[in-house]
Protein backbone atom coordinates (compact mmCIF):
# COMPACT_ATOMS: atom_id res chain seq x y z
CA UNK A 1 0.00 0.00 0.00
CA UNK A 2 2.73 2.40 0.98
CA UNK A 3 4.68 1.71 -2.24
CA UNK A 4 1.63 2.60 -4.36
CA UNK A 5 1.22 5.82 -2.35
CA UNK A 6 4.93 6.67 -2.80
CA UNK A 7 4.74 6.04 -6.55
CA UNK A 8 1.66 8.27 -6.88
CA UNK A 9 3.45 10.92 -4.86
CA UNK A 10 6.50 10.72 -7.15
CA UNK A 11 4.36 10.85 -10.27
CA UNK A 12 2.56 13.91 -8.95
CA UNK A 13 5.88 15.60 -8.23
CA UNK A 14 7.20 14.80 -11.68
CA UNK A 15 3.99 16.06 -13.28
CA UNK A 16 4.18 19.34 -11.37
CA UNK A 17 7.86 19.73 -12.26
CA UNK A 18 7.22 19.10 -15.97
CA UNK A 19 4.24 21.49 -15.92
CA UNK A 20 6.32 24.29 -14.35
CA UNK A 21 9.17 23.66 -16.79
CA UNK A 22 6.74 23.71 -19.70
CA UNK A 23 5.17 26.99 -18.58
CA UNK A 24 8.63 28.53 -18.15
CA UNK A 25 9.65 27.48 -21.65
CA UNK A 26 6.38 28.85 -23.06
CA UNK A 27 7.22 32.14 -21.32
CA UNK A 28 10.72 32.09 -22.80
CA UNK A 29 9.51 31.70 -26.37
CA UNK A 30 6.40 33.89 -26.18
CA UNK A 31 6.27 37.17 -28.14
CA UNK A 32 7.64 40.16 -26.23
CA UNK A 33 4.28 41.95 -26.29
CA UNK A 34 2.68 39.02 -24.43
CA UNK A 35 5.41 38.74 -21.84
CA UNK A 36 5.54 42.50 -21.17
CA UNK A 37 1.75 42.51 -20.90
CA UNK A 38 1.83 39.61 -18.45
CA UNK A 39 4.60 41.25 -16.40
CA UNK A 40 2.64 44.53 -16.34
CA UNK A 41 -0.51 42.72 -15.22
CA UNK A 42 1.37 40.92 -12.46
CA UNK A 43 2.96 44.15 -11.25
CA UNK A 44 -0.42 45.88 -11.25
CA UNK A 45 -2.27 43.11 -9.42
CA UNK A 46 -0.56 40.42 -7.35
CA UNK A 47 2.77 42.19 -7.00
CA UNK A 48 1.37 45.70 -6.45
CA UNK A 49 1.87 45.58 -2.64
CA UNK A 50 5.44 44.33 -3.06
CA UNK A 51 6.28 47.01 -5.65
CA UNK A 52 4.70 49.63 -3.35
CA UNK A 53 6.80 48.33 -0.45
CA UNK A 54 10.01 48.47 -2.49
CA UNK A 55 9.18 51.94 -3.80
CA UNK A 56 8.77 53.20 -0.23
CA UNK A 57 12.07 51.54 0.74
CA UNK A 58 13.91 53.08 -2.22
CA UNK A 59 12.40 56.48 -1.47
CA UNK A 60 13.44 56.11 2.14
CA UNK A 61 16.98 55.19 1.16
CA UNK A 62 17.40 57.96 -1.41
CA UNK A 63 15.72 60.48 0.89
CA UNK A 64 18.14 59.50 3.63
CA UNK A 65 21.07 59.82 1.23
CA UNK A 66 19.82 63.17 -0.05
CA UNK A 67 19.24 64.34 3.51
CA UNK A 68 22.79 63.35 4.47
CA UNK A 69 24.20 65.07 1.38
CA UNK A 70 22.20 68.22 2.01
CA UNK A 71 23.16 68.14 5.68
CA UNK A 72 26.83 67.73 4.75
CA UNK A 73 26.56 70.55 2.23
CA UNK A 74 24.81 72.72 4.78
CA UNK A 75 27.43 71.94 7.42
CA UNK A 76 30.34 72.69 5.10
CA UNK A 77 28.60 75.83 3.86
CA UNK A 78 27.99 76.90 7.44
CA UNK A 79 31.63 76.24 8.25
CA UNK A 80 32.74 78.28 5.26
CA UNK A 81 30.24 80.97 6.12
CA UNK A 82 32.14 81.69 9.28
CA UNK A 83 35.25 82.62 7.34
CA UNK A 84 34.54 83.00 3.64
CA UNK A 85 31.08 84.28 2.68
CA UNK A 86 32.00 84.65 -0.97
CA UNK A 87 33.02 80.98 -1.17
CA UNK A 88 29.73 79.98 0.38
CA UNK A 89 27.88 81.96 -2.27
CA UNK A 90 29.96 80.35 -5.01
CA UNK A 91 29.22 76.93 -3.54
CA UNK A 92 25.53 77.68 -3.73
CA UNK A 93 25.83 78.83 -7.33
CA UNK A 94 27.74 75.68 -8.31
CA UNK A 95 25.19 73.49 -6.57
CA UNK A 96 22.49 75.16 -8.60
CA UNK A 97 24.52 74.63 -11.78
CA UNK A 98 24.75 70.94 -11.04
CA UNK A 99 21.02 70.46 -10.64
CA UNK A 100 20.13 68.77 -13.86
CA UNK A 101 16.42 69.06 -13.36
CA UNK A 102 16.61 72.85 -13.39
CA UNK A 103 18.66 72.81 -16.58
CA UNK A 104 16.30 70.66 -18.55
CA UNK A 105 14.14 72.81 -20.78
CA UNK A 106 11.64 70.01 -21.34
CA UNK A 107 9.17 67.96 -19.34
CA UNK A 108 10.45 65.20 -17.13
CA UNK A 109 9.28 62.78 -14.48
CA UNK A 110 11.60 61.75 -11.69
CA UNK A 111 11.61 58.10 -10.62
CA UNK A 112 13.32 55.77 -8.19
CA UNK A 113 15.10 52.72 -9.63
CA UNK A 114 13.87 49.52 -7.96
CA UNK A 115 16.92 47.28 -8.33
CA UNK A 116 16.46 43.49 -8.21
CA UNK A 117 19.03 40.95 -6.97
CA UNK A 118 19.20 39.31 -10.37
CA UNK A 119 22.23 38.68 -12.56
CA UNK A 120 20.48 40.59 -15.34
CA UNK A 121 19.61 43.59 -13.16
CA UNK A 122 21.03 46.60 -14.96
CA UNK A 123 19.81 45.47 -18.36
CA UNK A 124 16.21 46.29 -17.56
CA UNK A 125 15.28 48.59 -14.70
CA UNK A 126 12.00 48.76 -12.85
CA UNK A 127 11.13 52.44 -12.29
CA UNK A 128 8.70 53.78 -9.72
CA UNK A 129 6.86 56.10 -12.14
CA UNK A 130 4.27 54.98 -14.67
CA UNK A 131 1.45 56.10 -16.93
CA UNK A 132 -0.23 58.08 -14.14
CA UNK A 133 2.83 60.28 -13.92
CA UNK A 134 2.85 60.77 -17.70
CA UNK A 135 5.43 58.14 -18.66
CA UNK A 136 4.97 56.47 -22.05
CA UNK A 137 6.86 53.78 -23.95
CA UNK A 138 10.02 55.03 -25.70
CA UNK A 139 10.56 57.92 -23.28
CA UNK A 140 14.31 58.37 -22.73
CA UNK A 141 15.68 57.76 -19.23
CA UNK A 142 18.63 59.87 -18.07
CA UNK A 143 20.77 60.38 -15.00
CA UNK A 144 22.66 63.61 -14.25
CA UNK A 145 25.73 62.04 -15.87
CA UNK A 146 24.04 61.01 -19.12
CA UNK A 147 21.92 58.43 -20.90
CA UNK A 148 20.58 55.41 -18.98
CA UNK A 149 18.12 53.90 -21.47
CA UNK A 150 14.57 53.98 -22.79
CA UNK A 151 11.19 53.03 -21.37
CA UNK A 152 9.97 49.70 -22.74
CA UNK A 153 6.63 49.14 -21.09
CA UNK A 154 4.45 51.15 -18.77
CA UNK A 155 1.84 50.28 -16.18
CA UNK A 156 -0.11 52.86 -14.15
CA UNK A 157 2.34 53.10 -11.24
CA UNK A 158 5.59 51.68 -12.62
CA UNK A 159 7.51 51.20 -15.84
CA UNK A 160 10.30 49.05 -17.20
CA UNK A 161 13.27 50.66 -18.90
CA UNK A 162 15.79 48.97 -21.17
CA UNK A 163 19.22 50.27 -20.18
CA UNK A 164 22.20 50.63 -22.50
CA UNK A 165 23.57 47.34 -21.06
CA UNK A 166 20.76 45.39 -22.75
CA UNK A 167 22.05 43.45 -25.80
CA UNK A 168 19.31 44.93 -27.99
CA UNK A 169 19.96 48.57 -27.04
CA UNK A 170 21.01 50.96 -29.84
CA UNK A 171 21.27 54.75 -30.02
CA UNK A 172 22.35 56.93 -32.91
CA UNK A 173 25.21 59.15 -31.74
CA UNK A 174 27.82 61.64 -32.84
CA UNK A 175 31.05 62.95 -31.43
CA UNK A 176 30.92 66.30 -29.67
CA UNK A 177 33.01 67.88 -32.43
CA UNK A 178 30.56 66.61 -35.00
CA UNK A 179 33.18 64.83 -37.12
CA UNK A 180 31.86 61.29 -36.69
CA UNK A 181 28.41 59.77 -36.64
CA UNK A 182 27.62 56.19 -35.70
CA UNK A 183 25.51 53.82 -33.68
CA UNK A 184 26.26 53.06 -30.03
CA UNK A 185 25.60 49.54 -28.73
CA UNK A 186 26.71 47.54 -25.69
CA UNK A 187 30.11 45.99 -26.21
CA UNK A 188 30.63 42.24 -26.03
CA UNK A 189 34.40 42.41 -26.19
CA UNK A 190 37.14 42.99 -23.66
CA UNK A 191 37.16 42.32 -19.94
CA UNK A 192 34.10 43.07 -17.87
CA UNK A 193 32.24 43.88 -21.08
CA UNK A 194 28.95 44.58 -19.28
CA UNK A 195 30.25 48.01 -18.42
CA UNK A 196 31.37 49.10 -21.90
CA UNK A 197 29.78 50.50 -25.01
CA UNK A 198 30.99 50.64 -28.61
CA UNK A 199 30.52 53.27 -31.30
CA UNK A 200 29.98 51.41 -34.55
CA UNK A 201 29.75 52.48 -38.15
CA UNK A 202 32.30 55.31 -38.04
CA UNK A 203 33.87 55.65 -41.52
CA UNK A 204 37.53 54.65 -41.63
CA UNK A 205 38.60 58.13 -42.73
CA UNK A 206 37.05 59.76 -39.63
CA UNK A 207 39.38 59.23 -36.71
CA UNK A 208 38.09 60.09 -33.25
CA UNK A 209 40.62 61.15 -30.59
CA UNK A 210 40.67 59.56 -27.15
CA UNK A 211 38.55 61.33 -24.57
CA UNK A 212 36.03 62.61 -27.11
CA UNK A 213 32.53 62.92 -25.71
CA UNK A 214 29.83 61.07 -27.66
CA UNK A 215 26.29 62.48 -27.62
CA UNK A 216 22.97 61.18 -28.87
CA UNK A 217 22.27 62.56 -32.34
CA UNK A 218 18.49 62.77 -32.19
CA UNK A 219 18.11 60.60 -35.28
CA UNK A 220 15.47 57.93 -35.02
CA UNK A 221 13.06 60.06 -33.03
CA UNK A 222 13.46 58.27 -29.68
CA UNK A 223 16.35 60.03 -27.96
CA UNK A 224 16.64 63.81 -28.13
CA UNK A 225 19.86 65.30 -29.42
CA UNK A 226 22.68 66.05 -27.02
CA UNK A 227 22.45 63.48 -24.20
CA UNK A 228 25.96 62.26 -23.25
CA UNK A 229 26.30 58.57 -24.04
CA UNK A 230 29.98 57.96 -23.30
CA UNK A 231 33.60 58.92 -23.78
CA UNK A 232 35.93 57.34 -26.34
CA UNK A 233 38.60 55.25 -24.59
CA UNK A 234 40.15 53.49 -27.57
CA UNK A 235 39.70 51.64 -30.83
CA UNK A 236 38.01 48.27 -30.47
CA UNK A 237 38.45 46.93 -34.00
CA UNK A 238 38.70 47.95 -37.63
CA UNK A 239 36.56 46.34 -40.28
CA UNK A 240 38.71 45.73 -43.35
CA UNK A 241 39.63 49.34 -43.90
CA UNK A 242 36.15 50.81 -44.21
CA UNK A 243 34.87 51.12 -40.65
CA UNK A 244 36.27 51.74 -37.19
CA UNK A 245 34.58 50.61 -33.99
CA UNK A 246 35.47 52.65 -30.90
CA UNK A 247 35.26 51.58 -27.27
CA UNK A 248 33.28 53.98 -25.03
CA UNK A 249 33.24 54.45 -21.29
CA UNK A 250 29.53 54.96 -20.54
CA UNK A 251 28.51 58.32 -19.14
CA UNK A 252 26.04 56.87 -16.61
CA UNK A 253 25.89 53.54 -14.81
CA UNK A 254 22.43 51.91 -14.70
CA UNK A 255 23.59 49.34 -12.14
CA UNK A 256 24.19 51.97 -9.48
CA UNK A 257 21.63 54.59 -10.49
CA UNK A 258 19.16 55.10 -7.66
CA UNK A 259 17.25 58.06 -9.03
CA UNK A 260 16.60 58.88 -12.71
CA UNK A 261 14.67 61.35 -14.82
CA UNK A 262 12.29 60.16 -17.54
CA UNK A 263 12.07 62.73 -20.31
CA UNK A 264 8.60 63.21 -21.72
CA UNK A 265 7.85 64.99 -25.04
CA UNK A 266 11.49 65.66 -25.88
CA UNK A 267 11.83 64.70 -29.48
CA UNK A 268 12.53 68.13 -30.92
CA UNK A 269 14.81 69.43 -28.16
CA UNK A 270 18.57 69.71 -28.06
CA UNK A 271 19.65 68.80 -24.56
CA UNK A 272 23.41 69.29 -24.96
CA UNK A 273 23.39 72.39 -22.77
CA UNK A 274 21.70 70.44 -19.95
CA UNK A 275 24.71 68.11 -19.62
CA UNK A 276 27.80 70.33 -19.44
CA UNK A 277 31.15 68.55 -19.57
CA UNK A 278 33.77 69.02 -16.83
CA UNK A 279 35.57 71.65 -18.89
CA UNK A 280 32.28 73.42 -19.56
CA UNK A 281 31.47 73.31 -15.86
CA UNK A 282 34.89 74.77 -15.09
CA UNK A 283 34.32 77.49 -17.70
CA UNK A 284 30.88 78.19 -16.24
CA UNK A 285 32.39 78.32 -12.77
CA UNK A 286 35.11 80.76 -13.89
CA UNK A 287 32.53 82.80 -15.76
CA UNK A 288 30.34 82.84 -12.68
CA UNK A 289 33.27 83.99 -10.54
CA UNK A 290 34.19 86.67 -13.10
CA UNK A 291 30.59 87.86 -13.17
CA UNK A 292 30.50 87.96 -9.40
CA UNK A 293 33.76 89.91 -9.33
CA UNK A 294 32.46 92.33 -11.96
CA UNK A 295 29.25 92.80 -9.99
CA UNK A 296 31.26 93.32 -6.81
CA UNK A 297 33.54 95.93 -8.42
CA UNK A 298 30.49 97.70 -9.92
CA UNK A 299 28.84 97.71 -6.51
CA UNK A 300 32.07 99.04 -4.99
CA UNK A 301 32.24 101.79 -7.62
CA UNK A 302 28.59 102.67 -6.99
CA UNK A 303 29.24 102.80 -3.25
CA UNK A 304 32.27 105.04 -3.82
CA UNK A 305 30.23 107.31 -6.10
CA UNK A 306 27.44 107.53 -3.53
CA UNK A 307 29.95 108.35 -0.79
CA UNK A 308 31.59 110.99 -2.97
CA UNK A 309 28.20 112.55 -3.76
CA UNK A 310 27.22 112.54 -0.09
CA UNK A 311 30.54 114.09 0.83
CA UNK A 312 30.14 116.69 -1.91
CA UNK A 313 26.62 117.59 -0.70
CA UNK A 314 27.84 117.88 2.86
CA UNK A 315 30.68 120.17 1.83
CA UNK A 316 28.50 122.44 -0.28
CA UNK A 317 25.32 122.65 1.85
CA UNK A 318 25.27 125.58 4.38
CA UNK A 319 22.62 123.84 6.45
CA UNK A 320 25.00 120.96 7.00
CA UNK A 321 27.82 123.30 7.99
CA UNK A 322 29.43 123.43 4.57
CA UNK A 323 30.19 126.31 2.26
CA UNK A 324 27.48 127.37 -0.28
CA UNK A 325 27.76 125.89 -3.68
CA UNK A 326 27.56 129.28 -5.50
CA UNK A 327 30.92 130.99 -5.54
CA UNK A 328 30.90 134.55 -4.03
CA UNK A 329 32.96 137.21 -5.73
CA UNK A 330 36.14 138.18 -3.92
CA UNK A 331 35.81 141.14 -1.55
CA UNK A 332 38.59 143.08 -3.25
CA UNK A 333 36.95 143.03 -6.62
CA UNK A 334 33.55 144.19 -5.11
CA UNK A 335 35.16 147.22 -3.63
Amino acid at each position, binding site marked *: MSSISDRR*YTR*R*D*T*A*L*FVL*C*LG*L*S*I*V*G*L*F*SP*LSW*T*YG*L*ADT*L*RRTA*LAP*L*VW*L*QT*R*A*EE*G*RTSRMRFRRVTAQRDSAAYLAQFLPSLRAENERLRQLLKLSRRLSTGYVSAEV*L*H*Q*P*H*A*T*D*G*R*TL*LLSAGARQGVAPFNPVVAPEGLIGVVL*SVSPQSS*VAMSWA*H*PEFRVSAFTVGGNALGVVAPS*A*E*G*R*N*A*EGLLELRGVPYRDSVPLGTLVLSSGLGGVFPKGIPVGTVTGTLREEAGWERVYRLRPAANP*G*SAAHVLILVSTRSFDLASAFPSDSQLEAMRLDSIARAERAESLAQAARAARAARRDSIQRTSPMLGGAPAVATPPRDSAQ
Partner: protein
Amino acid sequence: MSPQRVSRVQVLVVMLGLIVLQFYLRPRLGNARVSPDFLLIALMLFAMRSGPGAGAVAGFLVGLIEDALTPARFGAGALAHTLVGYFAAWGRSVFFADNALVNAAFVAAGLWFRDLIVLVISGSEHPQLLTELTIYSPLQALTTAGFALLILITFRSWFSIRLDA
Protein backbone atom coordinates in the same frame (compact mmCIF):
# COMPACT_ATOMS: atom_id res chain seq x y z
CA MET B 1 -4.15 23.36 16.92
CA SER B 2 -1.80 20.38 16.47
CA PRO B 3 1.96 20.89 16.98
CA GLN B 4 2.57 20.02 13.29
CA ARG B 5 0.14 22.70 12.21
CA VAL B 6 1.73 25.23 14.57
CA SER B 7 5.15 24.48 13.05
CA ARG B 8 3.78 24.98 9.53
CA VAL B 9 2.30 28.33 10.52
CA GLN B 10 5.63 29.32 12.09
CA VAL B 11 7.53 28.43 8.91
CA LEU B 12 5.02 30.40 6.82
CA VAL B 13 5.50 33.39 9.11
CA VAL B 14 9.26 33.24 8.49
CA MET B 15 8.63 32.99 4.72
CA LEU B 16 6.37 36.06 4.83
CA GLY B 17 9.03 37.87 6.86
CA LEU B 18 11.61 37.01 4.20
CA ILE B 19 9.35 38.38 1.45
CA VAL B 20 8.93 41.64 3.36
CA LEU B 21 12.70 41.81 3.91
CA GLN B 22 13.27 41.25 0.17
CA PHE B 23 11.21 44.26 -0.78
CA TYR B 24 11.69 46.54 2.22
CA LEU B 25 15.13 45.88 3.70
CA ARG B 26 17.20 44.78 0.70
CA PRO B 27 16.81 48.08 -1.25
CA ARG B 28 18.35 49.82 1.77
CA LEU B 29 21.38 47.52 1.88
CA GLY B 30 23.23 49.10 -1.03
CA ASN B 31 24.48 47.06 -3.99
CA ALA B 32 21.62 44.89 -5.25
CA ARG B 33 24.00 42.37 -6.84
CA VAL B 34 25.76 41.58 -3.57
CA SER B 35 23.03 41.98 -0.94
CA PRO B 36 21.26 38.77 0.19
CA ASP B 37 18.46 37.36 -1.95
CA PHE B 38 15.78 36.77 0.67
CA LEU B 39 13.31 35.28 -1.84
CA LEU B 40 15.83 32.60 -2.76
CA ILE B 41 16.38 31.84 0.94
CA ALA B 42 12.62 31.46 1.37
CA LEU B 43 12.45 29.19 -1.67
CA MET B 44 15.35 26.98 -0.55
CA LEU B 45 14.12 26.68 3.03
CA PHE B 46 10.66 25.78 1.78
CA ALA B 47 11.87 23.37 -0.91
CA MET B 48 14.22 21.55 1.48
CA ARG B 49 11.29 20.87 3.76
CA SER B 50 8.74 19.81 1.16
CA GLY B 51 8.43 17.46 -1.80
CA PRO B 52 10.02 18.03 -5.21
CA GLY B 53 6.69 18.92 -6.80
CA ALA B 54 5.91 21.61 -4.22
CA GLY B 55 9.51 22.81 -4.53
CA ALA B 56 9.15 23.13 -8.30
CA VAL B 57 5.85 25.05 -7.99
CA ALA B 58 7.31 27.37 -5.34
CA GLY B 59 10.36 27.91 -7.57
CA PHE B 60 8.14 28.68 -10.54
CA LEU B 61 6.19 31.27 -8.53
CA VAL B 62 9.35 32.93 -7.19
CA GLY B 63 10.77 32.96 -10.73
CA LEU B 64 7.57 34.50 -12.05
CA ILE B 65 7.85 37.30 -9.46
CA GLU B 66 11.45 37.99 -10.47
CA ASP B 67 10.59 37.85 -14.19
CA ALA B 68 7.77 40.34 -13.68
CA LEU B 69 10.12 42.72 -11.89
CA THR B 70 13.15 42.23 -14.18
CA PRO B 71 11.81 41.16 -17.57
CA ALA B 72 15.21 41.09 -19.30
CA ARG B 73 14.30 37.63 -20.61
CA PHE B 74 10.87 36.61 -19.43
CA GLY B 75 10.74 32.95 -18.42
CA ALA B 76 14.44 32.67 -17.60
CA GLY B 77 13.86 33.32 -13.90
CA ALA B 78 10.88 30.96 -13.77
CA LEU B 79 12.85 28.17 -15.43
CA ALA B 80 15.91 28.68 -13.23
CA HIS B 81 13.94 28.83 -9.99
CA THR B 82 11.81 25.81 -10.97
CA LEU B 83 15.00 23.78 -11.44
CA VAL B 84 16.51 25.11 -8.22
CA GLY B 85 13.34 24.42 -6.22
CA TYR B 86 12.93 20.93 -7.64
CA PHE B 87 16.54 19.88 -7.16
CA ALA B 88 16.69 21.43 -3.67
CA ALA B 89 13.73 19.30 -2.56
CA TRP B 90 14.98 16.22 -4.37
CA GLY B 91 18.58 16.62 -3.18
CA ARG B 92 17.51 17.20 0.42
CA SER B 93 15.40 14.06 0.41
CA VAL B 94 18.22 12.00 -1.07
CA PHE B 95 21.46 13.02 0.63
CA PHE B 96 21.39 16.18 2.74
CA ALA B 97 21.68 16.13 6.51
CA ASP B 98 19.83 18.36 8.99
CA ASN B 99 22.84 20.54 9.53
CA ALA B 100 22.52 24.33 9.45
CA LEU B 101 25.90 24.78 7.77
CA VAL B 102 25.11 22.22 5.07
CA ASN B 103 21.73 23.90 4.52
CA ALA B 104 23.42 27.30 4.18
CA ALA B 105 25.98 25.91 1.73
CA PHE B 106 23.09 24.44 -0.23
CA VAL B 107 21.47 27.90 -0.39
CA ALA B 108 24.73 29.34 -1.74
CA ALA B 109 24.99 26.58 -4.36
CA GLY B 110 21.36 27.15 -5.35
CA LEU B 111 21.94 30.86 -5.87
CA TRP B 112 25.02 30.26 -8.02
CA PHE B 113 23.18 27.60 -10.05
CA ARG B 114 20.22 29.98 -10.49
CA ASP B 115 22.51 32.74 -11.77
CA LEU B 116 24.24 30.33 -14.16
CA ILE B 117 20.93 29.28 -15.73
CA VAL B 118 19.57 32.84 -15.93
CA LEU B 119 22.76 34.15 -17.54
CA VAL B 120 23.01 31.31 -20.06
CA ILE B 121 19.35 31.55 -21.06
CA SER B 122 19.52 35.36 -21.26
CA GLY B 123 22.26 35.00 -23.87
CA SER B 124 25.02 36.70 -21.88
CA GLU B 125 28.37 37.06 -23.58
CA HIS B 126 31.41 35.15 -22.32
CA PRO B 127 33.15 37.99 -20.44
CA GLN B 128 30.00 39.03 -18.61
CA LEU B 129 29.19 35.42 -17.81
CA LEU B 130 32.64 34.95 -16.29
CA THR B 131 32.51 38.20 -14.31
CA GLU B 132 29.08 37.40 -12.93
CA LEU B 133 29.82 33.78 -12.09
CA THR B 134 33.25 34.36 -10.57
CA ILE B 135 32.73 37.66 -8.74
CA TYR B 136 29.16 38.82 -8.15
CA SER B 137 27.39 35.47 -7.81
CA PRO B 138 29.86 34.03 -5.25
CA LEU B 139 29.70 37.27 -3.25
CA GLN B 140 25.91 37.25 -3.26
CA ALA B 141 25.94 33.52 -2.50
CA LEU B 142 28.11 34.23 0.56
CA THR B 143 25.87 36.99 1.92
CA THR B 144 22.73 34.96 1.18
CA ALA B 145 24.12 31.82 2.81
CA GLY B 146 25.23 33.85 5.82
CA PHE B 147 21.74 35.24 6.30
CA ALA B 148 20.19 31.79 5.75
CA LEU B 149 22.48 30.42 8.46
CA LEU B 150 21.38 33.19 10.80
CA ILE B 151 17.73 32.32 10.17
CA LEU B 152 18.32 28.60 10.60
CA ILE B 153 20.10 29.16 13.91
CA THR B 154 17.53 31.67 15.17
CA PHE B 155 14.53 29.55 14.24
CA ARG B 156 16.16 26.16 14.67
CA SER B 157 13.15 24.54 16.33
CA TRP B 158 10.68 25.97 13.83
CA PHE B 159 12.57 24.53 10.88
CA SER B 160 12.92 21.02 12.25
CA ILE B 161 9.86 19.78 10.38
CA ARG B 162 8.96 18.23 7.03
CA LEU B 163 6.15 20.19 5.40
CA ASP B 164 5.17 17.21 3.24
CA ALA B 165 4.96 14.83 6.21
